[in-house]
């Protein structure tokens, strides 16, 4: 009767949020991400006590902080992964503008923590590195611009995105933070490539990157020192690189044993840039291969899901985030095994670092949101083709 009098309650023809989220989310990537964070905490237990001891803190101070930021990151990731692509786009565009402002103000308000580069905003409890947040937000923003430019009569999005990236890269270079600058440039190039860049132009860009590197080498002592260290034929066992390499050899296939590692005592960045060396020394090649496998899973899974994606924005944004994320991991590990010159880049999700963990959580959240299963119009296609 009630229905007859008041009419039926308006029925929403959508699934409840959580079941739908669980049904459409990329569970494999999610699992890999959680496993990487677990590995990060496991390694933090080994790698950070020496640093805590040096700084006169509780031995597991850094582990506690990592658990805290990791939890924050996971929260952000899950929350964001439930958002729709449109919301992601809006959120990321606003976020991008804020981060850009932060990046611009960095030389005036930031601190360098005595490391020779102004990259951080220092707050009482912790510090924030805007460039960490910049990477995923920029990817989404650039994806939007590129997708818009592909539309009929759309704005010149690619050119604008190029300008934006140039601006951000310029801001990073003056910090100086060549690693992040290179990463962002590489991410943009990959996105442009997927968006359908002419091959000729890509070749030209590759040449431009080489020329840029040459100029950087000749004009920045900071950069040149690192390159020289890489090019030196014999690795000096008293350098970070030497310690890292030695640690990997020391670990062998099955590791020296939990807590038996020594590299963490000699490497100042054992808990961040060279965490993979600690992993290799204490747990051996097995864990390293496991970690590499997790990164590869995240990237490949995301790319394969994005291949089926019809929406250009989603495809580009997802590709950008996934590529920047995996590239950062590859560079970090490549440095430790001396395939690449020393960059000072964290191993995402594994290394210690509040900003890094939170920013990576946000990035992965967006990636998960973008790679969710969506109707790709398969039925419609079949129907329209038939008609």
């Amino acid at each position, binding site marked *: 009767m009630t229905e007859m009098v008041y009419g039926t309650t308006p029925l929403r023809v959508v699934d409840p949020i959580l079941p739908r989220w669980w049904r459409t989310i990329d569970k494999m990537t999610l699992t890999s991400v959680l496993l990487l964070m677990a590995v990060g905490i496991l390694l933090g237990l080994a790698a950070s006590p020496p640093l805590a001891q040096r700084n006169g803190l509780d031995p597991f101070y850094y582990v506690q902080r990592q658990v805290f930021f990791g939890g924050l990151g996971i929260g952000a990731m899950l929350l964001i992964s439930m958002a729709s692509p449109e919301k992601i786009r809006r959120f990321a565009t606003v976020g991008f503008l804020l981060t850009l402002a932060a990046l611009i103000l960095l030389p005036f308000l930031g601190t360098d923590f005595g490391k020779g580069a102004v990259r951080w905003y220092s707050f009482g409890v912790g510090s924030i590195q805007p460039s960490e947040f910049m990477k995923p937000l920029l990817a989404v923003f650039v994806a939007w611009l590129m997708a818009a430019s*592909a*539309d*009929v009569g759309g704005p010149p999005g690619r050119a604008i995105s190029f300008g934006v990236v140039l601006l951000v890269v310029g801001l990073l270079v003056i910090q100086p933070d060549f690693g992040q600058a290179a990463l962002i440039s590489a991410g943009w190039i*990959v996105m442009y*490539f*997927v*968006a*359908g860049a002419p091959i000729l132009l890509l070749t030209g860009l590759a040449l431009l990157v080489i020329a840029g590197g040459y100029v950087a080498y000749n004009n920045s002592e900071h950069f040149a020192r690192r390159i020289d260290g890489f090019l030196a034929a014999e690795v000096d*066992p008293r350098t970070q690189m*030497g310690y890292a*390499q*030695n640690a*990997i*050899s*020391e*670990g*062998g*296939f099955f590791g*020296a044993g939990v807590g*038996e590692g020594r590299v963490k005592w000699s490497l100042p960045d054992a808990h961040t840039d060279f965490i993979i060396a600690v992993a*290799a020394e204490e747990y*051996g*090649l097995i864990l*390293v*291969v496991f970690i*590499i*496998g997790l*990164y*590869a899973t995240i*990237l*490949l899974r995301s*790319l*394969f899901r*994005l*291949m089926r*994606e*019809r929406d*250009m924005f989603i*495809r580009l944004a997802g*590709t950008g985030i996934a*590529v920047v994320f*995996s590239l950062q991991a*590859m560079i970090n*590990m*490549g440095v430790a*095994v001396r*395939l690449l010159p020393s960059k000072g880049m964290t191993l995402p999700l594994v290394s210690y670092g509040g900003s890094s963990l939170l920013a990576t959580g946000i990035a992965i959240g967006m990636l998960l949101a973008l790679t969710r299963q969506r109707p790709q119009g398969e039925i419609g296609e079949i129907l329209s083709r038939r008609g």
Partner: protein
Amino acid sequence: MIRKPLRPLARILKAREQGENPDYIEQENLRLRRQELRDTGRMQAELRLLLLALIFLSGFVLLGARMGLLAATEPLEVRAGLMEDISGARADITDRNGRVLATNLATHALYAETRRMVDPLRAARELGRIFPDMDVDRLAARFTDPDRRFVWVRTQLSPEQKQAVHDIGEPGLMFGPRKMRVYPNGRVAAHVLGGARYGEQGVRAAELLGVAGAELYFEDRLRDPAQANQPLRLSIDLPLQATVTEVLSGSMAVLNARGASAVLMDAYTGEVLSLVSLPDFDPNDRPAPPTSGEPADSPLFNRAVQGYYELGSVMKAFAVAQALDEGAVTPDTIIDTRGPIRWGRFEIDDFRDYGNEMSVTKVMVKSSNIGTARMVQAMGAERQQAFLRRFGLLDSARIELAEAARARPLLPDPWSELSAMTISYGHGMTTSPLALAAGYATLVNGGYAITPTLLRRDAPQEGAQIISARTSAQMRKILHDVVFEGTASFARIPGYPVGGKTGSADKPAPNGGYKEDAVLATFASVFPSHDPKYVLIVTLDEAVDTTGPEPRRTAGWTAVPTAAEITRRVAPLLGLRPVSFAEAEAKFQADLRAQ
């Protein structure tokens, strides 16, 4: 690419005519074009994403492969211990007939990789039990030092010790293969060989380096990888060396000598067949250099090569040879031997008074200091100096031993007339037994210069002619007469005529002057005297024959019987044919006539 227009004019006009909104046509076309764009874009992107995935996958694989490679390599620190480039190779040393004098033996060094140790304290305790000379506490401290990963424990292990260490069952104790230098003949030829030690050591090998003697002199040759399998062949003859050592050490004991040396040299090739210095040592366990006492009394001291002594009357042979060679005298020239000769506050006299005049041969036979002093006085100091220089007696003896170049003769400065006179009978200038042997070789081999050598050679040395063949023949006869008529009568061996000259030099006292009762007795001999092939120098330091009513220290009672015994034993070993006295005499006469 020809694109379909969004507002095809024909359709628009038609639609307008029919009163329809032409915008719908545009919207429809726009929708279719977007769909088309989307589909072509997606196809392209799919391909490019696949390519991207492949690139990243290969990147990850490369990363994993590199990690695996690094994991499979030995860590730098351990590699530093390995020292891959160390070669433990060292060629063998043999005597002239290929008998082994020095060779390598495989053994093991013991080291510890502390990180692999299960129970370092127990390991240290057990090692202390096996090697009682090791300090257990110190070993334990080194094993448990967190900054150490690598501890050398022992450089050499016997097979029994190795088994005992193995039985400890400690996985951190490891064995590194080693070559160990072994001198199978022990003390025989100790001073020739010198000894070896370990240099840089790694886990897989340790350098074997020479310490002294031929081992040090031939360092580069012995460690040359190209010649590692080729033994170094010396001129030493092991049976002769053993015989000489045995006789000499016997004499040294009987005559209560402080030291002794012997050099047996081929008079034509300069090859040293035997070189003995006593006291000696075992090169397998070379003693540390002495920190106290007289360095020249150390067993490590090579008296025959490093020892430069005033050798006394043996040097008279050079004064006589010079006089003969310059034609100033013949063996029969009569020399005024009235003594003593007074020179300032010095006085030159003979051991006994032999009369007022003697022939040159007689001067040698009786060993008259006055006689040789007179001869040299007539020729002058400068010519004596030049003559001795040609024999190489004024420089370090040249031989393939590391020590040889470090010792040199003491010479008078200035070379005054008095110096010349004393040098004529072997005082005022020092000479090593080895240099003396080379000098005597020249005196009897026809006058050719001889450089002593420890390397086997098969042809005579074609050295410079220093004295004439005639002088050499005369010297052979004179040396023969010394033995058969003079001071060296104990050297008369049936069948093996020996020529030679004795020297009994008073030893210098440490604070100037000469000791009364300390004599360095030398016998410089050549055999067979009628056709000398070998030179034998024997010196005995402070030897005393106490069998008589009074102690006899002169060479005729000490060095000569020793040399005679050596000659008696080695002559058959050298393949010399015994000859009769008449045969020898005939050869002398023939040689002298031939000149």
